């Protein structure tokens, strides 16, 4: 049994103009020890998808799914108390805004130990020891003295590490990291990614990494799901998707990242012209067709998801499998 099963997850948000179909039928499964990267531009619905798994969507958002199961527990049917018991204990989340995601009124130590003391019967001392241990694990020096500090006394990089340590307090089975490195400079980004990968292997967690950065994906993930306008357009293992990117959007994304040794400094990166279409009201056909070079009449109809081999799937009418880039 997969640790996480998601089948046809949709998220609709009522707006002035009508119902916004932010996420339109996302399906995937995840096993323990796997890392799934959900890749997409901002507004693709990738962050909403991850929030939906934790049931932390804004209250006006409407979440539906044929299946949403975590370790056999039906999350769609679970009561509030049951979900609270899972959150922070067996499934944890690391947020992307290290500056605002910590409460300014409480010390790091308080905020770290809080989750553990909520879910386990431990003494204050034992909780502090665990917090110090994890802070050291995420590479924070003088960890014990940090416990008494407030978030505003720490740099963005430190806060992001604190957030990661916080997510690990109860040794969750699943950890969802939403752009854990965007706010950080490149060196720290690399450190934190390495750290996440190491910790994930060490604890045997399943990791969902939400990112817009394909470079990050190649380094950390085992599986990739490319998301566009609320749908998964291409999924597969990292090898499959990077080896033979097939969906025109995936190919466009790959062209837009610099390749060491091949992209000359100053050379303009390929960007995909055009914009993500509005998702208010009924959405038909391929949402990428206003930006796609291969768009044909059939693209306005229903787009079936096709198996390209192994675990590699895509939602596009094109027959040809893309060449390795």
């Amino acid at each position, binding site marked *: 049994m997969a640790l996480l099963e998601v089948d046809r997850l949709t998220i609709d948000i009522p707006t002035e103009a009508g119902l916004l179909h932010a996420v339109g039928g996302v399906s995937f499964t995840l096993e323990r020890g796997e890392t799934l990267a959900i890749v997409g531009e901002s507004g693709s619905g990738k962050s909403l998808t991850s929030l939906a798994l*934790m049931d*932390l969507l804004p209250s006006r958002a409407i979440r539906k799914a044929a299946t949403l199961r975590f370790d056999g527990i039906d999350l769609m049917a679970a009561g*509030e108390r049951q*979900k*609270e*018991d*899972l*959150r*922070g*204990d067996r499934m*944890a*989340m690391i*947020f992307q*805004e290290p500056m*605002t*995601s*910590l*409460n*300014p*009124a*409480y*010390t790091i130590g308080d905020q770290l130990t*809080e*989750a553990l003391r*909520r*879910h386990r019967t431990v003494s204050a001392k034992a909780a502090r020891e665990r917090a110090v241990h994890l802070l050291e694990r995420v590479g924070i020096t003088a960890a014990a003295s940090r416990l008494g500090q*407030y978030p*505003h*006394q720490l740099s963005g990089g430190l806060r992001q590490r604190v*957030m990661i340590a*916080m997510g690990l307090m109860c040794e969750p089975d699943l950890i969802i990291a939403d752009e854990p490195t965007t706010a950080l400079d490149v060196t720290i980004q690399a450190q934190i990614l390495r750290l996440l990968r190491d910790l994930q292997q060490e604890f045997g967690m399943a990791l969902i990494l939400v990112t817009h950065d394909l470079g990050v994906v190649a380094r950390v993930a085992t599986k990739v799901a490319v998301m566009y306008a609320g749908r998964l357009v291409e999924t597969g293992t990292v090898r499959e998707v990077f080896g033979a990117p097939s969906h025109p959007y995936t190919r466009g994304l790959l062209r837009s990242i610099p390749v060491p040794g091949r992209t000359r400094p100053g050379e303009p990166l390929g960007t995909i012209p055009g914009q993500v279409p509005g998702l208010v009201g009924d959405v038909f056909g391929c949402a990428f067709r206003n930006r796609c070079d291969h768009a044909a009449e059939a693209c306005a109809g229903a787009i079936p998801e096709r198996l390209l081999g192994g675990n590699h799937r895509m939602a596009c009418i094109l027959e040809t499998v893309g060449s390795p880039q």
Partner: protein
Amino acid sequence: MLLYILRRFGVALSVALTVSIVAFLLLHLSGDLALAIAGPEASPAQVEQVRIQYGLDKPLAVQYLDWLAGALHFDFGRSFYFRETVAALVAERMPVTMTLGAIALGLALLVAIPLGVVAAVNRGGWIDRAALVFCVLGQAIPTFWLGLTLILVFAVNLRWLPVSGNATWAHFVMPAIALGWYAVPAVMRLTRNGMLDVLASDYIRTARAKGLRWPTVLFKHALRNAVVPVVALAAVQFGFMLGGSIVVEAVFSMHGLGHLAWEAIGRKDFPVVQAIVLLLASIYIGLTFLADLINAWLDPRIRVA
């Protein structure tokens, strides 16, 4: 922290000093005091005698320093009208007004903060809307009218509470409601909006992601941050209440500072007026300082640089 306290204290002190100068000057600019004290029938010689007796012939700066030095020892001279020192008059009336103000503020906060929290949590629901209507009404009803209505209902018709005076705690109930009423809308709205902002913030999402129970999220993580601006507002509202106590004390015939100020103004009893202005301003400044301290305790960003 110490630096912060010192700085706030310095601000408070300089405001207090400014107020004392204004209080002193206002009266001296309101006309010839000697003439006012001696009365309209006094002869020029009598006026001159009064002028020397009260030290009104000295330069203004000297008069101010004399007055300030006295004020620091709680010596405000003698009342022009009452056969008592100003200090004795004020000391006798002050507890009534302070008790009234404290009860009124306490009541207002006790009603407004929970109401603001409930309104924010049920945003757009009927409680939120009812609270909004209550706010509009609260600000539209004049204090004296509310006071009189309370008297009619609870004292005259139901006979639950005494009509007027300040002998027992029961005498304070209606005046405190009348006085506190006005503060409820502002405090409630600030609490509500503060809670809405905070509840939408990333750290509340983090708190929920930890699986914390809703009451913990609400009271530990949200309220503490939302209430910071409310503390400052409460101090301001207490200042308004001290001013409003003039009306309330008149309606309920309570012998407090407000009532004394009312009498003193009518009788041109300037030392009394000055003393009251200075005292009320000092209390207000003291409260603002206290609010700064409470906020420093609530919000470490203020406390720990």
